């Protein structure tokens, strides 16, 4: 069960990568990502969209798989900038992982 935290998207503003709500879940980023790993980065972006911060902290390790090649950001049809969102999530996790 994933509990939704209403203010999460706003909290993310200070970490950068606040474009996740532009995403309409098409999956282009996951298809183009060279990691080919379990819907990465789409799933992470979805967790951010929802405000499922527990899920993000639980799966934080996945964020560090990202090579920052930029393919997802270049192909995103909504300019949601997934690469930048992943970077922002890394900053968030670094700032918060001890608290959880």
């Amino acid at each position, binding site marked *: *069960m*994933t*509990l*939704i935290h*209403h203010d999460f*998207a706003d909290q993310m503003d200070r970490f950068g990568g606040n474009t996740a*709500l*532009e995403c*309409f*879940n098409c999956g282009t980023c996951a298809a183009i990502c060279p990691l080919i790993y379990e*819907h990465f980065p789409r*799933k992470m972006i*979805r*967790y951010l*969209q*929802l*405000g*499922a911060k527990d899920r993000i902290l639980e799966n934080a390790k996945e964020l560090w798989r990202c090579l920052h090649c930029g393919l997802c950001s270049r192909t995103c049809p*909504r300019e949601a900038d997934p690469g930048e969102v992943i970077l922002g999530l890394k900053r968030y996790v670094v700032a918060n992982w001890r608290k959880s």
Partner: protein
Amino acid sequence: MSSETKPEEKEEKVGVYICYCGGNISDHVDVEAVRDRVEKIPGVAVARTNMFMCSDPGQELIMEDLRDGIVDRVVVASCAPSLHEMTFRSAISRAGENPYIYEHANIREQVSWVHHGEQATDKATLLVSAATAKAVRLKPLEPIRVNAMSHATIIGGGIAGMRAAVDLADRGIEVALIEKSPFLGGQLALLDKLAPTREKASELVSHLASRVINHASIKVHSCTTVEHFEGYVGNFKVGIKKHPLESNAYKEKMKMLNPVHKSAEAFIPFAGVYSGPVPSAAEELVIDTGVIILATGIKSYTPYQGEYGYGEFPEVITLSDLIRNLAENNNGGSLLEINGRKIKSMAMIHCVGSRQIPGIHPEDASGHLNEYCSRTCCSALLNASNVIRETYPKTRVYEFYRDIRTYGRGQEELYEQASKNRVVFIRFESQEAPEVSKNGYSDEFPLLIKAKDILTFGEEVEVPVDLVVLATGVEPNEISKIVDMMKLPVGPDRFLLEVHPKLRPVELPVSGIFLAGTCQAPMDAGEACSGASGAAVKAAALLSRGYVELDPFVADVDIQKCNGTGACVEACLSDGALELVEMEIDGQKVQRAKVTPAFCLGCGACVAVCPENAIDVNGWTLKQYEAMVNAIVAE
């Protein structure tokens, strides 16, 4: 019309025209063989073939033979008569002949599409022979011409009814606008900022209603219902009843009327435009009218007790409730406030009472399931979400949807805008609808919505909320009485059914009755106006000549043979089509059957029961049938 005593011995000259239909017919029927065989039938003057008889050169073949006097009866063997009978009748008219000297043989749907080889050719020959035998006995007929009153009756005073009324009145046609409530504006008056432009519904309604009320050619009958209906195109009689306020259900809205409104045609929010004094006593009237436009509209779906917590939790409301709250409460804070509660987080649930699926959704009390999409709720909901996010930035909005259908111009942008406004979308499968329950985690948010979210790969999400808004769909208004009186076709979805969705989109099979707006299907206000203007144009075109022409295929009494048994009158299915009248024959007063052609359906029930064979249907006489049967069983 040709005289009844036309000498039988005169040779009719039948022209037979057989179509290849570009292979549709000729791939299975040996068209040339059929031509060779029917050419030998007595009475056939000429038999020709063509690749496409309906083409201009094909029609020209027929017209030339008629002009040259080679033929005076025409048989075309081609597709179904529903497709091209009118085409060929009009070709005959253009050649200067009577269009009813025509008979159609269907050798495509009834032959080449279902039979093959030798048998197909044989059956085609039989059908053409039968048509030829009938053609020999065809008489020129004249269409029945009836006067049409330059008057239209419109049932329903919503946006569609008002639009049609103004359009017709501007064309110089008198209009009676019948509205059951004391207010004009219908469902549109219950809305506020319309998607996608946020135009005020009140401005649209006020603008049209003021034109309606002040138009010299429009008479508004408010608090009025339709009680009685008879007549035919051009000459309908509509019996109406005006109700005093005690007997109807608009007391709450009437309270909103202050003396200012009673004198002017001002808009009263969430009621409409008061169109004049409420009758003090019941009164019945009959309106003589040429055409009728139905604009009976829709109502909002009411969720059943417990549907997404509706009726169980006060925090669960409908989209209509929300729209009204948004319009009436403007607290100016950064949080939306509904019923005194500050809304930090709210859920919008799509498709409530729409796109219902048998086996998943329960039927309503009368066994109905709304399987259609209500079409307007997605845009209305997104519009409301955007207004909330832009006006109350601290209020979070979650939309739970099955599919987003922002189908119209400028409506997909609402979805884009909602994304920009940080509205969160959660998608569910129809069989796994979100559950609304009391929030067990904290007192901060009273309700919790659980949903299996497709967009999070089927993970269950829980959203704590202060408010749940149900995007209730629409249902057609209950008009079974009118449907029964006017014998109107109703679709399985309970909306009225037009003759053809593309070719005759605002017409009903009953000539002179038209459709406007949402009684036909869920529509937004713009589409309802398009439909209404279409119906108005069709109605005006019909009335413009001052008369209408009806097909002459109606019963005809042979006074010489009739001896007044009255069997035909008893058998007649159409009220008013047949009656016994007194007349004088050879100095004696006798009863004889008389047909009122405009009422006659041409069904032939009277022909079957007459012991004297004194009644026949023009264009389909017993003699013609006999000749057709003889042709089929010959040899």
